[in-house]
């Protein structure tokens, strides 16, 4: 890497380079992102986290964003639950107003919070550290993220189960991306066995269809793809499998 500054400023240059690189998307932020995309819309905790940001609140309330809202709806249909915050009026408050969701740009040590002009450094760093180390503890701290009814599972359990489910779907996705049909089908079978009513059921279904096609079973892939498109013709996810529905 060629030096940018004069030799006497090398220390400064190193700090500036570090400042430019010291931004990561934390697991918590990834979950919120997936929830906003409708992938994890069925998860109460992740859904609430996503809906807590001003943009997603607006997104759900805005008629002009029907496409994205329909993604959320589809996810909700699959999971049998819904975004409970979607009916709330849009809020313009910045995401930092809820400590559990201050993770904009977290490093493993959470020190990047200090780069946020608005973030109260100590509190934010502590929260970020918690958020990145354990989503469960974050959930327990945020009062708004507590389950609303006694009949529901504790939020921490839901979140842990979702993490397992997400990991399995990611393995399935990786196998599909690698073109390994048989491995993808094995992951898909495992997913169906472990999460018969999974929150990521639709995503898994799409990946299963792709896995079938990869493994050479195009007729079954076509049959499932047609069924999926009949049920969810406008789903953004459907676009991915339209090519299999011959």
């Amino acid at each position: 890497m060629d030096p940018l500054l004069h030799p006497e400023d090398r220390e400064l240059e190193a700090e500036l380079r570090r400042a430019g690189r010291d931004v990561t998307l934390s697991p918590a932020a990834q979950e919120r992102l997936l929830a906003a995309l409708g992938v994890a819309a069925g998860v109460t905790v992740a859904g609430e986290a996503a809906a807590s940001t001003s943009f997603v609140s607006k997104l759900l309330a805005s008629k002009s964003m029907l496409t994205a809202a329909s993604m959320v709806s589809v996810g909700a249909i699959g999971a049998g639950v819904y975004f409970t915050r979607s009916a709330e009026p849009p809020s313009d408050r910045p995401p930092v107003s809820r400590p559990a969701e201050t993770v904009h740009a977290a490093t493993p040590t959470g020190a990047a919070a200090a780069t946020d002009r608005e973030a109260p450094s100590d509190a934010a760093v502590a929260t970020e550290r918690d958020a990145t180390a354990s989503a469960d503890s974050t959930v327990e701290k945020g009062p708004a993220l507590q389950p609303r009814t006694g009949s529901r599972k504790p939020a921490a359990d839901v979140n842990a189960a979702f993490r397992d489910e997400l990991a399995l779907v990611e393995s399935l996705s990786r196998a599909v991306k690698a073109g390994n049909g048989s491995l993808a089908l094995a992951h898909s079978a495992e997913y169906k066995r472990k999460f018969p009513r999974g929150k990521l059921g639709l995503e898994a279904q799409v990946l299963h269809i792709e896995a079938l096609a990869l493994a050479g079973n195009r007729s079954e892939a076509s049959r499932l793809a047609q069924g999926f498109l009949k049920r969810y013709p406008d789903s953004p996810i459907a676009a991915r499998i339209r090519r299999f529905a011959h």
Partner: protein
Amino acid sequence: MVSEHGTFVARTLRNLGVPARELDDCVQRVYIVADRRLNDIRPGCERAFLFRSAAHIAAHARRSLARKREVLEEDPHPLRAPPFQPDELTQRKQFRELLDSVLNSMSDELRNVFILHTFEELTMAEIAELLELPPGTVASRLRRARGMFRDRIEALKAGATQESA
């Protein structure tokens, strides 16, 4: 795309001038655009698509902030502060502000090339491919951006020295 490129998108947005408080929302905007145009993204070109979307959204975010006059007063001379604060977090914040100040002085075309080379550590050939530019153009922009970066730091240092004298 989220797990593979999420950090790249967040870092790109931040280095393109999106304030930390807007980062979460802007990352979501980038991915919603990507999701809507999934069929248009050529396999293997995901990062290029995400970068272009991020650049567009960052520009929009900067304009919105300017219009709303929500930009907080930046210290034009971050180097004026003592170089070694006892609090490491404060020090990191100052370096970030200094970096923002320098990057904000660059045009978009120089800044794009500069951040991809300096912070993403892409080669000039990779940048040329990602931005769909001729390699010579990338090399030229990078040379100008590096010169501007150095000059801006020198100017800030000179200003800080004068003020302390």
